[in-house]
């Protein structure tokens, strides 16, 4: 399980197995602008992944977050 998914699942309060890369962020009941910020900040602090402010508007799916971590990993 990717640590990114763990972070997202915890913030959206859903089981980790319940989220897929293709899922739209808007499809989660607990997703809002605050949850978005919490995900961005947790990824930065726990995984060392920095998402630039300029790129944030491009994030719409779970997979968009995953890509940053894979990018950082490579």
């Amino acid at each position: 399980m990717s640590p990114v998914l763990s972070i997202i699942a915890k913030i959206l309060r859903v089981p980790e197995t319940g989220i897929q890369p293709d899922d739209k962020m808007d499809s989660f009941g607990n997703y809002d602008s605050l949850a978005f910020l919490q995900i961005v900040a947790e990824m930065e602090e726990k995984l060392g992944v920095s998402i630039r402010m300029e790129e944030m508007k491009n994030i719409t799916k779970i997979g968009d977050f995953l890509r940053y971590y894979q990018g950082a990993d490579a």
Partner: protein
Amino acid sequence: MKLGVLSNINLDSLVRKFPDAFAVYSGEGFGTWIPELSRTDSGLFSFSPEVVFVVLDGEELVRVAGEKQEVMAELEENFQYITAAAREHPSIPFFVSTIDIPPSRISFLRDERMEHAAECHWRGLLEKARVSFPNVIPFDLAQLVSHLGRERFYSRKLWYLGGMKFSMTAESLLLEEMERCCDALRGIRKKCLILDLDNTLWGGVVGEEGVHGIELSEFQQGARFKDFQKRLKEIKQLGVLLAVVSKNNLGDALEVFRDHPHMVLREDDFTAMKVNWNRKAQNIRELAEELNIGLDSFVFLDDNPVERGLVKQELPEVEVPAFPEDTAQLQEFIQGVYRKFFLKIDLTEEDTKKHLQYRQNFQREQAKKTSASFEEFLLGLQTRLTIWEAREQDVRRVAQLTQKTNQFNLTTKRYLESEIHEFVRAREYRVFVGSVTDRFGDSGIVGVMILKAEPGGTDVFLDSFLMSCRVMGRFIEDSFLGFVEKRMAGEGFGVFHAQYLPTNKNKPVRSLLERLGFALVSEDPEGRKKYLLELGKKPERKSFCEVVEG
């Protein structure tokens, strides 16, 4: 628990992280902390919070840059909203943050550092309020920032994106601190800290290396143990009982306590010592019995993971924190243990005496063993019970007793200091306190009775009746009740209503009211019992102590 969390920045993310046991009100939109505090009909006070946290960001507080005098005046103006709220709502505790102001302004080296002056000025205002208002408690936000470091505490990105300043790491730290404050407020804490000796209080094994071979010194390596002991001594001075449970020869251990020049803790700092070769769980069980405190009131520290594991397995009620692998961390470790298990808001006179009192109880136990009969033992104690109606200076101790007394407690109603304040002021409530001395020493205030009795009425309702376990089993409750009955009858009251609400721990008083001659009126399936006593027909109470009005 209902809390208000006010701030001049967006704390929604923090608020969302509070566990379900907390109901949190954080204001309508952010930046409204001043109207929330100053209007008595604000959302905050309509919510009737049990506690309010005012967590302020320093940078935003002094946003209006200007002359030093203007900035200080601005701080004072902001602060007076807090003191006004504290004055207006004396029954609500206010945790008020210190402020941290990162110097972000571009400046030259000899430039005036207004940020530091502002932080200090705010601290000064807070200190003044702490002294003047018993319900103002400093919340050291600036200390949390230093602990984590500004770089990790703040997030510029969150600020620009959402008006939030604190990083997720900082929020976790804040949340933990706020929960601890709430626990401390409710008196949720342990009573006794049990310590191992070898490689815990000092380095090395005294049985092998001898008194002068162990590691313990003012400087260098041995200083980590001495620093550890200094913090333990401070913990003891805050009213926590210290005990030793160690596998050792008693003679070797005592030699260290008596002869080692760098021992901070001495024999008489400990309420009890179990130095033998028995199993530690067995020793801890005996301690619980001999000190008359529950196993769930103990915290056990031992460097040996095997011993820790055994105690954890056999006595799951006992808290057994992991011991630091690197003993360089001992001081930080014990500071953490204190905050996690023993943190308190204030120090009462009772706290400082507690250790002596538990020791005296041991001596009383000895006297009991040598008396011919129980009556002879009780009379030989020469007990004197002083009773009076609680005054302002007793409020803290009374609240503490309602929060901590589990066994001899008829209704187990927990009260905050603020609530006891209300009872003491209100005409329809009466709060009686009893303090006890005997030939072994002064036990201080050990009994509380809270009555609801409308002046001019005929009925008295017993809201709470509790006695510290220190004086249980000495029929002091008979004398206490007898005094109060006489007083209320004298004021024209005729009927005394009482109840017993069962908990896991108050079985010792399950039949107390029957014994005291109350008539059982009803009992429900949960075991809650209601009683009546006609004051005109109350039985003669035997007394083993001299009763004095104080």
